[in-house]
């Protein structure tokens, strides 16, 4: 088991070296993928989005907020205000067309990567 974990770590290291094929900042890329995936489904307000991400992925909520700001700066997300039943209006995040493109690209990278890892774990890799 320990051997396989090391394999995965090694693969991650290689993946981050090969920047032409895999997002170099792999972990940040995965988090970005999660945020874009959630917003591709529906618009969310900050707390909703952050708690969804940190519920499934072990990641500090404090990492997600700055990321959302960066994604908005890059034009992948938009924000708008919407009245809420409880308290003041909430700021909602909405994915842009550019964000959808980026999502598709990251998803393809992710699929290829996990496929590769699965192949190694299951021993399907042709030697």
């Amino acid at each position, binding site marked *: 088991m320990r051997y396989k974990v090391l394999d995965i770590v090694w693969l991650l290291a290689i993946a981050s070296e090969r*920047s032409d094929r895999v997002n*170099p*900042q792999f972990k940040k890329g995965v988090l970005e993928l999660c945020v874009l995936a959630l917003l591709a489904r529906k618009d969310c*307000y*900050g*707390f*909703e989005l*952050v*708690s969804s991400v*940190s519920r499934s992925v072990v990641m*500090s*909520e*404090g*990492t997600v*907020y*700055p*990321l959302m*700001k*960066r994604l908005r*700066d*890059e034009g992948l997300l938009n924000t708008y205000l919407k009245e809420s039943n*409880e*308290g*003041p209006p*909430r*700021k909602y995040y909405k994915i842009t067309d550019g964000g959808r493109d980026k999502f598709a690209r990251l998803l393809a990278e992710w699929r290829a990567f996990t496929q590769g890892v699965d192949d190694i774990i299951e021993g399907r890799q042709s030697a």
Partner: protein
Amino acid sequence: MTRAEYMIRLADKLHNLPEIRRREIVEEILAHFNDGGSEGISDEALAEGLGPPEILAKEYRAAYASEQASVKPSIGNVMRVVWAGIGMGMLNLIFVLPIVAALFAVWLSLVITGGAMALVGALTAILSIVSIIFPMALISIVYPIASVFVCLMVASLGGLLLIGSLRLGGAWGKFIARYVCTNIEIISGKRKQNAEEH
């Protein structure tokens, strides 16, 4: 940690961001506390989920800096790039200039030597021929015929040296030109080093 305490510590570390940006961040995190509170989560647990305010502020600052560097060609950013470029130029000047100067001096001395040998050799060869045709006319040379051959040899050696060093100078000049162009490209940002790393 109460939310007030968290917000104070966060805002304190955001002071070098623009006012609008800072207010956005504070509102966002405050909304996080409000929304979390209305779902029955304690301030303490929410603060723990967000991590230390100093780290959060650091990540916000990093996000802002990377956006500034990649998107907005503001005066401040351009100046930073220019200063970096000047710094690199100075480094080049300090390290490369002596080498370039020394090589140039060697090259120049080769050209001058070659030129002088060719010129003097040719002139004395002519003088020798003249003294063969008109003995005692201008000056007397002891072995005029031998002198013609020796002088022609010196002249052709000088000519070869001159041509060779001029050719070398051309190649050297091209190399310097390419080196300077590369530097300009790096400074102007056409050739990015580690573009992916922030």
